């Protein structure tokens, strides 16, 4: 593979996963790393599941942790409803992910690898199962692979919830007072990484850190998968070099070139004003506007949409997806959703609701066991900032044109009743 060529992860056709033979032929290499962990460290790879934590630091923490029978968990839950990157990757190149997991297992000394796929995504489950069967038939030596299918919930992909599910069959986040904390499956330490991160590790193990750093910025090198939805012809998963401008990403995705705003990072992400379209798409730049790359999600909000309506729909769904374990999340998020609905209604209570919204954001933040409520607060705060004019308008019953048109851009799944939510 050439250094400056782009399809790194998506080297193949989505929908027809490479077989083990094809995979070995495509990614043939003569590279031999002296120390895989050092290669990982030098590559500067950060996690692609949303938090962008340095992968090497996490691996080193687990390597230095004592104990036998450590476990590597590959997180393919893809909790974000507007993200398709993980399933696209698995339907293109599942063996690359498994390679990466095997490398991580050899670094930390794990004997077991668990690939967690949402059972609501049968295609991805099938792709992983087929890849694992091929490996078993080829008689590959090394760690033992297992496939687990957890229920699809927004918070089920959170690492402690996923480990809780593997332990006790309950997809509920756990309280972890110490940070950094080491999660355990039946007393065995767990290294948990996103599918895309594992695929990058697989590539670094084959071609080395230097090759990896030939693309991207110096702080966050390499490439990444981006799901672009919203004001596009159809949702698209792209592989882009980190630091590409947002305008270029939108152009490649065939999106509306003049959106009103972008939702970055996912449902727990942040809105970004369209004035910043020429900014490079990486965490360092986006941080100054309170946004992150997150799980590589871009939702373009067209000019004929309304940011307040979209935020309300997302927050309502997020409130329903709360695990209802912590009071501030279980009661606070529905309260935020109701406040937003009040603002939209444009009645006498609306300006009060707007003030209450800002106050409640401060009350809820940082008081859950996981980061679910914090994500919603971040979304609401960014909406208050970016759509300040629209919020004022709605609160004084002068609705914007976007809300009257009834167009919606962010795909929000059906609201399930509380009794319908499956956690185990």
């Amino acid at each position: 593979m050439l250094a400056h060529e782009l399809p790194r992860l998506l080297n193949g056709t989505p929908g027809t996963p490479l077989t083990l033979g094809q995979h070995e032929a495509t990614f043939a290499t003569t590279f031999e790393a002296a120390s895989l962990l050092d290669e990982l460290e030098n590559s500067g790879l950060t996690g692609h599941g949303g938090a962008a934590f340095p992968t090497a630091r996490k691996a080193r923490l687990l390597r230095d942790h004592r104990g036998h029978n450590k476990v590597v968990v590959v997180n393919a839950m893809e909790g974000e409803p507007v993200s398709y990157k993980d399933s696209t990757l698995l339907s293109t190149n599942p063996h690359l992910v498994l390679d990466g997991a095997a490398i991580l297992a050899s670094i930390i000394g794990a004997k077991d690898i668990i690939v967690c796929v949402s059972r609501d995504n049968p295609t991805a489950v099938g792709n992983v199962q087929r890849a694992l069967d091929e490996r078993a038939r080829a008689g590959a030596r090394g760690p033992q692979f297992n496939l687990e299918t957890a229920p699809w919930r927004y918070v089920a992909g959170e690492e402690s919830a996923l480990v809780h599910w593997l332990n006790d069959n309950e997809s509920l986040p756990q309280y972890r007072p110490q940070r950094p904390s080491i999660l355990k499956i039946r007393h065995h330490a767990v290294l948990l990484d996103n599918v895309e991160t594992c695929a990058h590790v697989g590539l670094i193990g084959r071609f080395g850190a230097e090759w990896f750093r030939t693309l991207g910025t110096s702080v966050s090198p390499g490439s990444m998968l981006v799901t672009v939805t919203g004001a596009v012809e159809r949702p698209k998963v792209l592989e882009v070099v980190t630091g590409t401008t947002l305008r270029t990403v939108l152009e490649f995705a065939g999106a509306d070139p003049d959106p009103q705003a972008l939702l970055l990072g996912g449902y727990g992400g942040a809105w970004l004003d369209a004035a910043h379209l020429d900014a490079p798409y990486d965490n360092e730049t986006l941080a100054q506007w309170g946004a992150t790359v997150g799980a590589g999600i871009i939702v373009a909000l067209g000019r004929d949409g309304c940011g307040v309506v979209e935020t309300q729909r997302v927050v309502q769904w997020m409130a329903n997806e709360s695990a209802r374990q912590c009071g501030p999340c279980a009661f606070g998020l529905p309260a935020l959703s109701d406040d937003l609905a009040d603002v939209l209604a444009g009645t006498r209570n609306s300006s009060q609701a707007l003030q209450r919204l800002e106050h409640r954001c401060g009350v809820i933040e940082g008081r859950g066991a996981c980061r679910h409520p914090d994500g919603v607060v971040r979304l609401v705060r960014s909406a208050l900032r970016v759509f300040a004019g629209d919020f004022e308008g709605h609160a004084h019953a002068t609705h914007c044109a976007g809300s009257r048109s009834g167009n919606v851009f962010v795909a929000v799944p059906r609201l399930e009743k509380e009794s319908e939510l499956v956690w185990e």
Partner: protein
Amino acid sequence: MGVRRRSGVFYLRVNPILCDGFGHCHELAPELVSMDEWGYPIIRREPTPLSDLATLESARFAVRGCPRQALRIERVSEN
């Protein structure tokens, strides 16, 4: 004599999963715990010096008085 020099700070921490909003902590340690509109504790995020014995005492009362045993005191030594 008898009085140990106390250096360092402490935080009162709540496990939000265990907490069911009984509100005893707010009654027992009002200087550390205020309440949100749903009855769940909002605990002071700034550290309290361990030399503040009165506050430490009420924090201990709150820990002991919590029906769900969701509270604990986290000491951070200064060095």
